[in-house]
């Protein structure tokens, strides 16, 4: 049978919220995707779902599993490119917590357009 597969998501970092110099809008997050250099590259990721995965102290239930786990996640999706250097805007179901800045966000490969 097939061995456990590898990574099925692109790695990204949550760099901050959409903002002007003195005001920020927390409903839209900015993500820097690994290896993504320009708007052309960033367009590939539009529509893809993304997750911020983190750990918490208390165990909560996991869907389709009886065991509870400390892992939690916030789901969202990439909405549009941001700027000229390959960043991307994303909206999450609940706004990302500021402690996630600089932390890993996973950008899944689905919904696929290839």
């Amino acid at each position, binding site marked *: *049978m*097939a*061995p*456990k*597969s*590898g*990574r*099925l*998501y*692109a790695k990204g970092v949550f760099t901050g919220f959409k903002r002007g110099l003195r005001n920020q809008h927390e409903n839209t997050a900015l993500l820097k*995707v*690994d*290896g*993504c250099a320009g708007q052309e*590259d*960033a367009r*590939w*990721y539009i529509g893809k779902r993304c997750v911020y995965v983190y750990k918490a102290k208390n165990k909560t239930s996991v869907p389709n599993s009886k065991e509870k786990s400390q892992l939690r996640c916030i789901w969202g999706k990439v909405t549009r490119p941001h700027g000229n250097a390959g960043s991307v805007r994303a909206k999450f179901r609940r706004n990302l917590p500021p402690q996630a800045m600089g932390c890993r966000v996973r950008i*899944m*490969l*689905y*919904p*696929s*357009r*290839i």
Partner: protein
Amino acid sequence: MAKNKNKGKPRNYALDSGVYRFSASKMFHKKAIHKFLKKTVAKKPADKKPVFVEKKIKGDKNGGTRMVRVKKLTNNVPTMDLKKKNTTRKSVFSKHSRKLRPSLTPGVVVIILAGVHKGKRVVVLKQLETGLLLITGPLKLNGCPLRRINQRYLLATKTSINVSGVKVPETINDKYFARVKSDNKVKKDGNIFENKKEDYKPSEQRKADQASVDKQVLEAIKKHPQGAALKSYFKAGFGLNKGEYPHKMIF
């Protein structure tokens, strides 16, 4: 006959108040209309329609039937107005147009991006009526059975196998894959909250279909110029490694 002194004079006349002197029934007698009426045919007795009808009802120990009035009584008003079903709705799911991404033709090797079988490389067989794609591992190579998947969770590769010779039985359609509803009619004395979920076990029908379709697919793989390499290709899973960026990759 005696000479009619009143000939020419009207039989009925209006009084000062405007009302006429003689009523319709009096006039009937005065004019002797009974002499001029044609004989009516006796009414045929109408076909007796049943007042009550026996109708079957579901459930145990309730007699099985009820006597229901054919014509509802006028005082029989429902307590709540039933929501009218919109029969003129234009877009019904069954009539939606199903689109297929041009890269996902039958025979294409595809990577599953989500679900239990994520990362596996599988073969697309055909598109079903609801628009979902039918795929197979083949089971022996990567443990993925005949399955339905949405196009959005598939990453098409440039590799494809010639499956024109593979005949998928007509019985394998959306109904085939529909979830079987468990009968929970018999309420046991045991705890209602007990989890009665049974592990899924493929039926004999499924196993047989899987074997027959896979046999054909495996043959098609063998015939492929890179057949031997393809087998190990199917067995291995897909994963991104360091330096591999999906937006730069051609799959």
